[in-house]
Structures are given as C-alpha cells and as structure tokens.
C-alpha cells in the first residue's frame, strides 16, 4: 500500500486536542459552520456500557468514522484552498478516528447510549478534534483588515466607528478569495450541462439559506434531488481542485 496523501506522520498534537473536554461551544460559527456540541455532563463509563461497546459493529463503524474524518477534512480543504493533509497536521485519518475510539473505550469520552447511537457520538468527538485542527490552520491565515465591509448601517456610524468595527472582524485573506473565485467560477461553467446543480448554486447566491429543506422548497424539488445535486457539485469541486 502506497503512502496516502495524508502521509504517515505522527499523531502530533492529537493528545493536546483531546485534553480539553468537548465543552459546549459558543454560538460563534466555526469556520462558517455552527456546530452543536454536547455539554460535558457527568456521564461515566460503566461495565455494562463497556460491554456494549465491545460488541458494537466496529467492522462498519470504524470505516464510517474514518470516512467522516476524510470527508470533513476534504470539505475544509475545499473551503480554504489548503491541502487537507496540512490541515490535519500530517495525522492519518485512521489515527484520528482510532484515537477517538480509544478514548471512548477507556471512558475518557464516555458514550451514553440513552442519548443516542454510537456512530453519531463518535463523529461528534471526531468533529471536536477536526474543528480544533481547522481553527489552528485558520488562525495561521486569518488577517484583520480595516476597511472590510461590516454589513452595518453606515448612516448611523462615524467613519472612525466603522474602522474600529471592521478592524475587529476577521476577513478571508486574499488567497482564500482567489481560491473561492476560481472554484465558484469553474462550478458555474461545469454545471451548464447540469441545470439541477446550477440551480442550487444560483439559489445560494440569491441568499437561500444553506439547508437542504430550504433549497428543496425554493427550487420545488425533493430533498433527494437536492442531496444528489450537492453530491455532483462536490465531486466537480474536488475534481477541479485535484483533491
């Protein structure tokens, strides 16, 4: 088996990322995605739950978890224009997934069956690690630029107030804007032969809320049609970026 594009790198920094409990996050979107996280409750692993974990369908759960890590990392790479191997700091997706599994089995991140199925919980734990890795990558590239649009009511603010407000708002660095422009431009060209996919892009551009059900409503399509259209868009976007 040839080395993956993620490389065989060590689990650098993973222990640190797991050291912090998955606390309830603020409502501030993480890289444009609002993630709901469980509050850290006083849940403990019991022998009964441990036995249930041992008997879980790991043959299917583990590949699904590794895939989730890959999927999200590739999406983030698409969003940011960065190589997703760099985003997850050279850790193999399997390592991230296996570390999550180990922590759940050891009780460090105890699963409570009363609150839901195992795989969604594992994905949530993996999301916590990935978000921290992505945030770290973003922090290296975020810039504060005065003069960026604040979206506020300019009539009510002095020029000085605007500058102060704008200075506090992080904006995408120029290379991210260039990357996005390239991806979106190509997608519009590529989807000329795919009206369903292009309609999704147009609806988003027109301000439709980025949720499958709202798009289905707006485009008078079924949720399945929207889901399939999104899959086609993602394939095209990733193919274009060589990711």
């Amino acid at each position, binding site marked *: 088996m040839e080395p993956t594009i993620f490389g065989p790198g060590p689990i650098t920094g993973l222990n640190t990322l797991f050291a912090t409990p998955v606390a309830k996050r603020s409502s501030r979107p993480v890289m444009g995605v609002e993630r709901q996280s469980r509050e850290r409750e006083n849940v403990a692993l019991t022998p009964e739950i441990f036995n249930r974990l041992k008997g879980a369908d790991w043959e299917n759960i583990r590949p699904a978890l590794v895939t989730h890590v*890959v999927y999200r990392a590739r999406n983030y790479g698409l969003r940011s224009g960065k190589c997703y191997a760099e985003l997850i700091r050279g850790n193999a997706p399997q390592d991230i997934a296996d570390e999550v599994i180990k922590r759940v089995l050891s009780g460090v991140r105890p699963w409570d069956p009363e609150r839901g199925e195992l795989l969604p919980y594992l994905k949530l734990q993996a999301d916590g690690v990935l978000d921290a890795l992505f945030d770290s990558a973003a922090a290296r590239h975020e810039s504060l630029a005065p003069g960026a649009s604040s979206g506020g009511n300019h009539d009510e603010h002095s020029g000085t107030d605007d500058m102060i407000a704008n200075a506090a708002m992080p904006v995408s660095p120029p290379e991210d804007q260039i990357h996005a422009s390239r991806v*979106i431009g190509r997608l519009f060209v590529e989807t000329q032969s795919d009206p369903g996919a292009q309609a999704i892009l147009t609806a988003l*551009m027109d301000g439709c809320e980025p949720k499958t059900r709202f798009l289905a409503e707006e485009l008078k399509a079924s949720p399945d049609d929207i889901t399939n259209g999104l899959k086609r868009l993602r394939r095209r976007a990733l193919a274009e970026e060589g990711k």
Partner: protein
Amino acid sequence: MRDTPKTEAALLARLVDLFDEEGPTSSDEIDVELRAAGIDPVELRASTGAVLEAAVKASPFDWRNRAAAERAAAERAFSESSAPTRAPRGEIVAEIRKILDRLSALGSAQLVQVHCRNFEKSTDEDLAGLLAELRFLEARQRGPDGK
C-alpha cells in the same frame, strides 16, 4: 430580507456547509471517499479487529486491567482497615465471634465456615490478623452504604 453572500468565499463557505450536512452513508460511497484519500477500504476493514482489540486491552474497564486495579484497591483498603489491635486476647476473640455472627446473618455462611476455628490454638498475632481480615470482609459484604 435575504442574506445574500457578499463574496465568493462566503458563497463557497455556504456550499461547503451543505456538503458537511450529509456525508457518505452507503458502503459504496464510503469506499469511494476512502479511495479518493488514498485509503484502501479492504485493508482498513481488515485492520479493524486488531485496532479494537488493542483499544479494549488498553481500557481500564477491560477485565485484565480491572482485576489488577481492584486487587490494588482491596490491598489499600485492607492495609487501611487493619490497624494493629492492642486489645486483650479475650476481647479480640469476642469481637471475632461477633463479626462471624453478623456475617452469618448477612448470609455469608461460607465465610463463617472458613474462619470458624478453635481459637485457643491460635497465637495472639494470628488472632489479631484474623480480626483485621474479618473487619475488612464485613465491610466489603456490607458495601459502601454500610448495609
């Protein structure tokens, strides 16, 4: 009022938000995604057994680790409870008999049988050790709430 994305980066972010909403679910989709990342799904599945075995073995809840932890905890509890007894021999024997009676009432007939003996033939040290052991056993039988 609609919130239209102000930049292409904002539009791309919304598009990726949608991608994040749902990921691969079927085996075929999973295999495609894994292969795109250079991961062999067959090898991944084949390695799952070993990975899980290692994770289970490393867990403090695995019987191997629990046995060692429980033994260590019991040893600690025993050494804490077995303070040296300086009472006269008669008092020690009397307390031993009382504990044996209580253990019998708790349904611990086997324990009582094992420990019932002709105390006249035991040395003072033996009796002190037996008393410490019985105190420890009684506490374990009653549990953390003392019942």
